[in-house]
């Protein structure tokens, strides 16, 4: 008696068509998630835009924002996108050591960004802006803090991949989607920061 046929989730030809691979399904899921996250950030940004003039007795955005510090954080995050891309490229070429180095650099840059954000928040609190000081304070800390949580989660995700590689060995072609999914998330966080930097900080200084 012959063994029953076992169908895997690999790309299976069906006539001229084919079933999606798990990697493609994961990627589709990531894009759906990012699209929904986009809507979430939109709600927070819209709330901030509507509330940034409601300062009460707290400092205004013009008095408060420290553009050089925020610009430094922006460059750190932009640089982390570059290092993430270089790490992904190294993985695609099977250069294990180079991937590990770029992953570490990306995580350090992510942590540096979160650290700069912590410095910024502490400074603002000392200057009198707390989440309960005004509608501006509440919407500002919610929006920027939510983004900071995203960066922190991204660092944790990259760390999980780093540990995966340390324990299981170099990423093979079947595992590359893990890194590709994490890189999409990381870039998305950077994209959102570009919007926040412009709408909150630059336009906040101007308007």
């Amino acid at each position, binding site marked *: 008696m012959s063994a029953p046929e076992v169908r895997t989730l690999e790309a299976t030809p069906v006539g001229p068509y084919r079933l999606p691979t798990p990697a493609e399904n994961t990627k589709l899921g990531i894009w759906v998630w990012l699209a*929904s996250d986009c809507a979430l950030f939109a709600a927070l940004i819209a709330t901030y835009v509507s509330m940034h003039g409601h300062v009460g007795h707290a400092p205004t955005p013009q008095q408060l924002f420290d553009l050089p510090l925020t610009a430094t954080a922006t460059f750190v995050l932009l640089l982390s996108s570059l290092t993430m891309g270089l790490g992904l490229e190294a993985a695609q070429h099977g250069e294990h050591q180079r991937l590990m180095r770029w992953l570490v650099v990306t995580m350090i840059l992510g942590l540096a960004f979160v650290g700069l954000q912590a410095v910024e928040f502490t400074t603002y609190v000392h200057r009198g802006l707390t989440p309960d000081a005004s509608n501006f304070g509440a919407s500002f800390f919610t929006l920027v803090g939510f983004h900071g949580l995203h960066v922190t989660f991204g660092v944790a995700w990259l760390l999980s991949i780093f540990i995966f590689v340390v324990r299981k060995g170099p990423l093979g072609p079947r595992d590359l989607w893990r890194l590709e999914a994490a890189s999409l998330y990381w870039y998305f966080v950077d994209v959102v920061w570009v919007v926040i930097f412009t709408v909150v900080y630059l336009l906040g200084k101007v308007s």
Partner: protein
Amino acid sequence: MGIGGPQLHTGPEPRPAGRAVGTTRVHLLVAILLAALTIVAFVSVGGHLLPVGWLIPLLLVLAAAQVCMQLLYYMRLKWDRRIFALLFGGGVALAVLIVLAVHAMLSL
């Protein structure tokens, strides 16, 4: 029309997961352009180089250019399946509607 199976994928053959599409040169070039646009935005605001009426549209255009570059080259939408771009475009469209709705609601 195919015979003998459901129509699951009719688009072009997708880029296999993990295949290299962006080179170091492309990554570096995009990173330099992103940094340059950020510097232009920062200097424009910090140096009070333009009247506010010009500055606000300039900043929005610079941000839009940066977002597009990141989506196309870093997030690889330029090379990937169109469905991903459509999905994300849908998310952005929804985001714009949410911004308008929330802003209108809170401005009442």
